[in-house]
Each structure stands twice: as structure tokens, then as C-alpha cells.
């Protein structure tokens, strides 16, 4: 990993290696490009917006540090984007993002202490019935839930099943008696619409 942009500014290496350090005074943030997002970026924005709360809370629960959790969460999403760019495979689902952030925190602990350390806040589990029955809807913020409610019916079904629950497009297509490509199309459209709804852009 050669560089990253964090809430603290530009770093010359992964934020995880230097998490917790403040930037020197006067260090400028890199400018935010002021252009319309590409379709893929907009789709990614919808994915990040709809799953950020879940991933962040997992990171916080595992690490016990709120500031570090923001870095872990950002790193997790950057990994998912990088995976898509480099391999062409899309793994943009909430369960995958959650597992990614858990791995990142585990790696962080290994680097910090040279050993595998039990997660700090593991006992504060908000998964009362285990990971497989995680209540995604309950973990959403009000804004995200409202945006979800405004999605057309099919897009809502597909985004909920594929992105939040982690059901594969093939499984869902079989259940709904659809072509797999139709599921992919609905997912793309749903994420893009979510991004637009959550960022306040007009349709």
C-alpha cells in the first residue's frame, strides 16, 4: 500500500501504521475532486453509505477505540475498492466488509504487540444471536433506513439481500426466477440511487 487519505489528512503510508498521530500543523488536505462521480464510484458511494455504520460499529466493538475505528473502517472500504479495481471482482457486501475490518484489526494487534491478542471489546457483543442473524436494519442510521424505504421495490429487495445479507446474486436470481444479470443490474441501480438519495442529489 503506497498512500492513503484519512480524516487526518494525507499519509505517506497506510493509516494503520501511524494511527493516532496527529498531522503536523499546516499540513494541507488533498483537494477533493469536484466532478460528477463515475457510475462505479457512485455505486461504491452507495455501498459505503449504506454499510458504514455497521462496519464502523464492528470496528469500534473490536478495537475499543473510536478514533482508530474510523481509520480501520476507511482502510476496509479502500481494500474493497482496490480489490474491485485490480481483479474486476466485486465483493461489496456488508458481511465481507465486516470480515475485512476484523482482519485489519487483527493485523493491527499483531503489529502492535507481536502476537495475536483477543479483541478488546469482544464481550460487548451486539450480536445477541450470532453473526449469521445480525439485524442489519437495526444497525442502520435513520437516514440510511429512510433512503432504503425510498428505493423502488426490486432495487430494495436486491440491495437488502445481496449487499446487506450477503446472499449471492445466483441464489437470489434462483429464488426470484430471474436472470443473474438482472440481479446485478438491480444492485447497481439500487446502490447508485442510494448514493444520490444520501448525498441529497436530485434524481
Amino acid at each position, binding site marked *: 500500500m*503506497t498512500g*492513503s*487519505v484519512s*480524516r487526518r489528512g*494525507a499519509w505517506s503510508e497506510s493509516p494503520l501504521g501511524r494511527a493516532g498521530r496527529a498531522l503536523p500543523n499546516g499540513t494541507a488536505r*488533498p483537494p*477533493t*475532486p469536484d466532478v460528477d462521480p*463515475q*457510475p*462505479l*464510484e457512485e455505486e*461504491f458511494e452507495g455501498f*459505503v*453509505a449504506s454499510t*458504514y*455504520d455497521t462496519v*464502523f460499529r464492528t470496528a*469500534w466493538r473490536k478495537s475499543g477505540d*473510536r478514533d482508530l475505528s474510523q481509520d480501520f473502517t*476507511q482502510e476496509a*472500504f*479502500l481494500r474493497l*475498492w482496490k480489490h*474491485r*479495481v*485490480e*481483479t*474486476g*471482482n466485486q465483493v461489496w457486501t456488508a458481511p465481507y466488509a465486516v470480515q475485512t475490518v476484523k482482519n485489519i484489526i487483527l493485523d493491527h494487534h499483531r503489529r502492535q504487540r507481536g502476537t495475536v491478542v483477543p479483541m478488546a471489546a469482544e464481550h*460487548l*457483543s*451486539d450480536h445477541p444471536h450470532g453473526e449469521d442473524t445480525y439485524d442489519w436494519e437495526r*444497525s*442502520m*442510521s*435513520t*437516514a440510511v433506513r429512510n433512503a432504503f424505504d425510498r428505493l*423502488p*421495490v*426490486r*432495487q430494495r429487495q436486491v440491495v437488502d439481500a445481496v449487499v446487506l445479507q450477503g446472499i449471492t446474486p445466483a441464489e437470489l*436470481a*434462483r429464488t426470484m*426466477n*430471474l*436472470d*443473474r*444479470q*438482472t*440481479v*446485478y*443490474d*438491480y444492485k*447497481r*441501480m439500487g446502490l*447508485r*440511487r442510494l448514493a444520490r438519495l*444520501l*448525498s441529497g442529489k436530485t434524481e
Partner: protein
Amino acid sequence: MGVDQRSGRPPLTEHERGDRVREIIAAVQARPELGRVGQVGSRADLPCAGAARGVEQWVNEEHVRAELADAERAALAGDCRSARRAAELYQAIHEFDRSTAWWRTAAELGDEDAIDYVRYVLD
């Protein structure tokens, strides 16, 4: 830490979450090795898995045609959801010309999914 981690409520305010999301997207766009969508050699613009394959093994053409007959009848009576379903079913059996026609019809009848489909996929 200020907020109960065990509660089901999200730990961030709406503004905080919005800021964090924007930062992640800015980070994606700012990193040259991650923002190379559209460049020669990038695989990011490739279609998702699922494009250009045969009719799915779970699609039973007989059943689909039976459902199509009902869906088309209801769609011709002005039901936008049935029109969309007809488009989906034609797509499932890879009759893309008819599928496209039904997507457009469903969009004209006001189905929001179909409107987005025409806007983002067909046009």
C-alpha cells in the same frame, strides 16, 4: 466512550457518517492506483460476472412462458409491475428484444425500477 456500544443505535451522527463517507470516496479518487477506473488495462470497468452467459439452469422456459402470459395480460391492462415482470421474464429466457420493449413499456406506465433500468442500462 460516550455511546453505548451494545445498543442497536448507530454510533455516529448523520453528519459524521456523511463526512466519513465523503472522505472515503475522496480517498478513492485521490489515490492514483485506486482511481484508475476507465484507464487502459483497468479491470474495474469490466462487466460483473453474469454477463454473456446462457440461460440460467434454474429457468424453466415452460413455467416462464406460463407466467409471461399472465403478466402480459395484466400489463396490457395497464399494470406497471406486471409489465416489469414481463421484462424480467423475457430477460430470463434471453429474448432481449421483447425484454427491452417491456422495460420501456413498464417505464412509460410509471414503474420506478423500470424507469431506472431504462435510464441506467438501456439508454
